[in-house]
């Protein structure tokens, strides 16, 4: 039958590929085991936690193993999956973030005191990690679509997981509808690309040849439509509208996870994608535009936010724009800066959310104006928050500064003469200054303002304190000795 693919070859390829996906398999296994455990084991909360932890650690171990043992990039599963060093690095980052998030889930009162239990969330969580892994390794548009959908669905579910309040339910609805529209747009773009090029494979020449044949206008259309879905996951402008709502009402630990891990995955994919869509300068201009607007909007809109998590949502938009700046450069130039920035951003971000969760657990305040005078009661947390905020702003001696500097210097070295990049840099700098304003609002309320009434002494969530301090310490440590982090992720 000549109209069938070469089964022999594809099967061999699949069998050969199996060995490379150790980390993914482990997660799938973990996912299934946890579902089963949840079904058949009573009082399985801590057991599931242990399992999930074990899964992540094992998966991480596989990744480390891969990182050490394999150097070459390979296409697996008949061109579905790309195995490369950079992908492993991104995945490692995801695992690290997930580990912190996992611990965090169990400290978040909104989740732990949830009557329906937390186990289902953990399984969704694992599935979303799987989605991220696959996204990072996506070698074609089908995989891209599937994995993005996987992450998205998982995110919708996690955000709406215990949406008992009106607001929470509302945010879930907005998130899911917004996401569905974005993915429909992306899907349409994918269909166009397939139509224009006859292939969905990102690697190889077919895509570029096909796209260049149909001309810049049409290819730009297709590419931009595809980028819409990616931008949605990055919450880059103009696909950011869901972000503040979802961040504001979702459980803090979930937000912490969603603000870091999916972004790492999407950036990881974007990194892989970068060389293949270079028809004209569409992708560069899109990224330029998205980066600039995200930085401006995110940082400026954050200024007057009172809800801490909402503010962090806008801050996340701003940071997305900042990282996106890097992607106007050729692939070869950006890996370290992207990884470094994402790692540092994640550390600081998770730290901040942990602190916020700690405050929420103890004082039930989520508004920044409610933080007045807390510095006296929980100085350690206050100091952590200050340092983390400073890191997010990018001021020495925190790691955020090094990260920011890497981005700047990469851009300058790439092409500082380009007026667009100069503009981008200027915007980045100005919004950095603006960002200081709202980041400092938290310490401002913490230390500079007097509390309205007497505040009880905090007693809960000592794990969160420990973790926040650890993350803060890391922030400073990597700020002073960034080589350490580089050694870790490299």
């Amino acid at each position, binding site marked *: 039958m000549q*109209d069938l693919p070469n089964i022999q070859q594809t099967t061999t390829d699949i069998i050969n590929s199996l060995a490379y996906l150790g980390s993914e398999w482990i997660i799938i296994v973990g996912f299934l085991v946890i579902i089963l455990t949840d079904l058949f084991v009573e009082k399985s909360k801590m057991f599931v936690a242990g399992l999930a932890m074990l899964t992540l650690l094992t998966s991480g171990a596989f990744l480390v193993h891969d990182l050490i043992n394999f150097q070459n990039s390979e296409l697996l599963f008949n061109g579905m999956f790309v195995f490369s060093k950079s992908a492993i690095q991104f995945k490692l980052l995801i695992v690290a973030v997930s580990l912190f998030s996992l611990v965090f889930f169990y400290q978040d009162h909104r989740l732990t005191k949830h009557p329906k239990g937390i186990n289902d969330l953990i399984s969704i969580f694992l599935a*979303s990690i799987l989605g991220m892994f696959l996204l990072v390794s996506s070698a074609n548009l089908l995989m891209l679509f599937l994995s993005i959908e996987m992450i998205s669905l998982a995110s919708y579910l996690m955000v709406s997981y215990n949406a008992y309040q009106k607001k929470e339910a509302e945010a879930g609805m907005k998130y899911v509808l917004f996401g569905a529209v974005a993915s429909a747009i992306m899907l349409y773009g994918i269909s166009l690309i397939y139509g224009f090029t006859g292939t969905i494979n990102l690697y190889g020449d*077919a895509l570029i040849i*096909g796209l260049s044949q149909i001309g810049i206008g*049409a290819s730009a259309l297709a590419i931009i439509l595809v980028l819409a879905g990616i931008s949605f996951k990055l919450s880059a402008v103009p696909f950011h509208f869901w972000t503040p709502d979802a961040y504001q009402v979702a459980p803090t630990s979930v937000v912490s996870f969603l603000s870091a891990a999916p972004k790492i995955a999407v950036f990881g994919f974007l990194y892989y994608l970068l060389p293949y869509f270079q028809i004209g300068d569409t992708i560069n201009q899109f990224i330029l535009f998205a980066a600039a607007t995200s930085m401006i909007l995110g940082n400026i809109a954050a200024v007057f936010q009172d809800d801490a998590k909402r503010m962090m949502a806008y801050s996340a938009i701003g940071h997305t724009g900042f990282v996106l700046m890097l992607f106007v450069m050729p692939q070869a130039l950006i890996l370290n800066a992207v990884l470094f920035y994402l790692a540092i951003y994640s550390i600081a971000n998770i730290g901040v959310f942990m602190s916020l969760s700690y405050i929420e657990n103890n004082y039930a305040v989520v508004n920044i104006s409610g933080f007045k005078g807390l510095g006296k009661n929980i100085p350690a947390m206050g100091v952590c928050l200050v340092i983390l905020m400073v890191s997010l702003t990018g001021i020495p001696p925190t790691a955020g500064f090094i990260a920011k500097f890497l981005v700047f210097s990469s851009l300058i070295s790439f092409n500082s003469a380009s007026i667009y990049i100069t503009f981008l840099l200027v915007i980045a700098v100005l919004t950095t200054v603006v960002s200081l304003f709202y980041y400092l609002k938290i310490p401002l309320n913490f230390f500079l303002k007097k509390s309205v009434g007497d505040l009880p002494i905090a007693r809960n969530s000592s794990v969160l304190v420990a973790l926040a301090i650890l993350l803060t310490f890391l922030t400073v440590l990597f700020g002073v000795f960034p080589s350490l982090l580089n050694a870790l992720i490299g």
Partner: protein
Amino acid sequence: MPGMRAGKTVRKRLKFRKEKDVVEQIIFYILTAIAIGSAAYVVLSQQLIRSVFMFFVTLFAVAGLYVFALADFVALTQIVIYVGGVLVLLLFAFLLSSKDALDTISEIPSGLLSANRLPAVLISLAFFGLLTYTFFNIDFQNLNWITSAQASGNVKSVTDDTIRNIGVNLMSRYLLPLEMISILLMMALIGATQIARKEPKAL
């Protein structure tokens, strides 16, 4: 079962297609008209329940169009999953959520009064114009991949056994996505049930 009946109709039409291209085209355009017309009704109707039912028609019509693209299995799946699953789901949701709305049609806000309407028209038209402009600027028959496909005979014909091809492909080339989507479905299932589950009284 309206879905089954629609499937049969399509099959019958397939037989006719060989005999006359003209008939084929006529049917195609009739389907097109149905699809677009019903879709427009879905979109524009102010009566909720009718628009939902009209959506059935749209989906059927589109499934018919799939057949014209020689994707009979996809058409089938569309009918089975979309019409049989998704739409029924939608309908249930409708019935659950809009009990009051169903009683009094007039309560549904008029699309005309909606402030979103003008931007919506503009945006939709712009999109449509853009797409049309793009499609007419491309000479699809001379695209590299299509010409090479035609040259190497990599073009479907009506007689092809697409189902077999799909089966083999799914189990070989597209194995990983297939496995993945199973996980995805499972996750969606768990999550959906989890959320839909009635929370214990304790809360």
